[in-house]
């Protein structure tokens, strides 16, 4: 009886249309660079990365680092637009790229998704666009952590840096604030929605893992106070395995964050601008002020009304701060 019911319902449904496969690239999430050769890409350390540039080759190199781990650079593109006659692209050769296993870049297994591998990737990109030279780093959220980790390991390769809403630079700090950052109440709708998807599909491949991660993206960190609905920060595709395994690489065997991106940071003599959104409750002003002394020459600026997505919702204000900061070194354009 039950088999008949199932077969009857299934047959009726399938007769009505052509059934789709969730594992088919392009159905649930956009294709990556390995599935769509028309996407701009570069190959770094054997991995094909979604990447594009703005500005003119030969200008000082600025490398953008998106958040996550596992997000993409789609919303960072706004930082290359022109506001009030000013554009970073007039002064820099800007490199946008989706990190390994993230956005529209090639997907990888756990062994290729480590902090060391991420560091090697960024070093290879710096070498590709500024051989033997220095670059300016711009990072948002995890991008600020990633950039700081790179400075910690390669202090001579970074001229200056702008980090927007940087996450915790030490595992001990992350452990302290993670209860405030993530809303893990068992009855929360985002958490139950995400768990409930197991009734509809199994997250057994990259496509379905990335798709499932998207369901929890909006509600998991409410105190970031990001914009919801029309005008929300856009993404192409999240990288679930990159998000999971890069984070796990910064944890001990018990799952406690134990990384430290600041062990060598005081040797870095370049300037750092830390930008916070005033409405970002956990990763905003208090955390940026707390982390400011970890760098030798860092300043903190706050964008009023901005949340964790301040680079997207308050782009002109963020660019104004960046312009002032970068002009001091003579490359960012005078005010």
């Amino acid at each position, binding site marked *: 009886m039950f088999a008949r019911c*199932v077969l009857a319902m299934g047959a009726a449904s399938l007769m009505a249309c052509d059934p789709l496969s969730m594992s088919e690239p392009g159905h649930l999430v956009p294709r990556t660079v390995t599935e769509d050769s028309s996407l701009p890409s570069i190959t770094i350390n054997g991995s094909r990365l979604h990447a594009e540039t703005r500005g003119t080759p030969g200008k000082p190199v600025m490398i953008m680092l998106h958040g996550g781990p596992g997000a993409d650079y789609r919303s960072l593109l706004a930082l290359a637009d022109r506001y009030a006659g000013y554009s970073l692209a007039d002064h820099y050769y800007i490199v946008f790229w989706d990190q390994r296993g993230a956005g529209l870049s090639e997907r990888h297994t756990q062994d290729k998704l480590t902090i060391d591998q991420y560091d090697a990737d960024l070093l290879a990109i710096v070498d590709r666009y500024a051989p033997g030279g220095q670059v300016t780093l711009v990072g948002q959220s995890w991008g600020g952590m990633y950039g700081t980790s790179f400075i910690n390991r390669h202090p001579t390769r970074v001229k200056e840096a702008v980090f927007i809403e940087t996450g915790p630079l030490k595992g001990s700090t992350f452990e302290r604030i993670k209860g405030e950052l993530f809303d893990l109440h068992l009855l929360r709708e985002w958490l139950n929605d995400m768990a409930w998807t197991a*009734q509809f599909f199994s*997250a057994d491949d990259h496509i379905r893992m990335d798709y499932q991660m*998207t369901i929890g993206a909006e509600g998991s960190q409410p105190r970031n106070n990001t914009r919801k609905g029309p005008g929300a920060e856009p993404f192409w595709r999240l990288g679930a395995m990159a998000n999971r395994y890069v984070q796990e690489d910064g944890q001990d065997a018990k799952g406690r964050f134990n990384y430290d991106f600041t062990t060598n940071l005081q040797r870095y003599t370049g300037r750092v601008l830390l930008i916070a959104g005033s409405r970002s409750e956990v990763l905003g002003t208090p955390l940026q002020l707390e982390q400011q002394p970890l760098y030798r020459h860092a300043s903190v600026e706050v964008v009023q009304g901005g949340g964790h997505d301040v680079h997207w919702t308050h782009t002109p204000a963020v660019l104004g701060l960046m312009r002032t900061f970068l002009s001091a070194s003579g490359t960012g354009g005078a005010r």
Partner: protein
Amino acid sequence: MKRVLLFAALMLASGHQRLAAQWNLARLEPGDATWQVSTALDPAIITSIGYRQLRTVFGARTQFGVEAGVVAGNADLGDYRARLEAGVQVYRRGSFRTVASAAFLTRGTSNTVFRGTNFGADVGITAGMYRPRWFVAGETGYDKPIVTHVTHTQGYRRTYYADAKDGWYIDTGGTRRLGVVTGTSLRGVELMLRAGVARTRGGEALVAPGYATLGMGFRF
């Protein structure tokens, strides 16, 4: 959980105390019917109400049932599950019984990415000791979404992927489970506890890696 306790209180307060609560096959006779309420993490927090009746079919003790539940954290009832099931006692030796079950399910969801409805099947086997006042058994099973209709939200198209495909999806996966179920009669109400681990068809952990159900049953 509040809904479960409220339902139990209403049943007790309305004169049902003399009903022999039952969720244990060993205490059911053909013709007996039971109501059950439960709260579970399976795979999200879901509160369900069910009705089951025992009959004899071709000489075998067979329990037919219907159950419906809604997921917590969503007042619009967009996340739900309904199941139509049958369980057949396929083996008995003394207090040891083996029950095979099959269910047809329909489920719905409404989240920030898509609205979905699917039809699926669940098959399982439970084997263990069934005594009049208690039972404990091991269980294993497989839940298979067969066809799933997906309609993506405008928010997902706007923020992530404008060209996401709406339609009927097939072969979207499945969930395996392995666990234990136990129950006891307590002052006229049968309490049931079920817990175990669940994995996707490919062996990946779910968002909630395990499942657990706390239920109460009432016979009439």
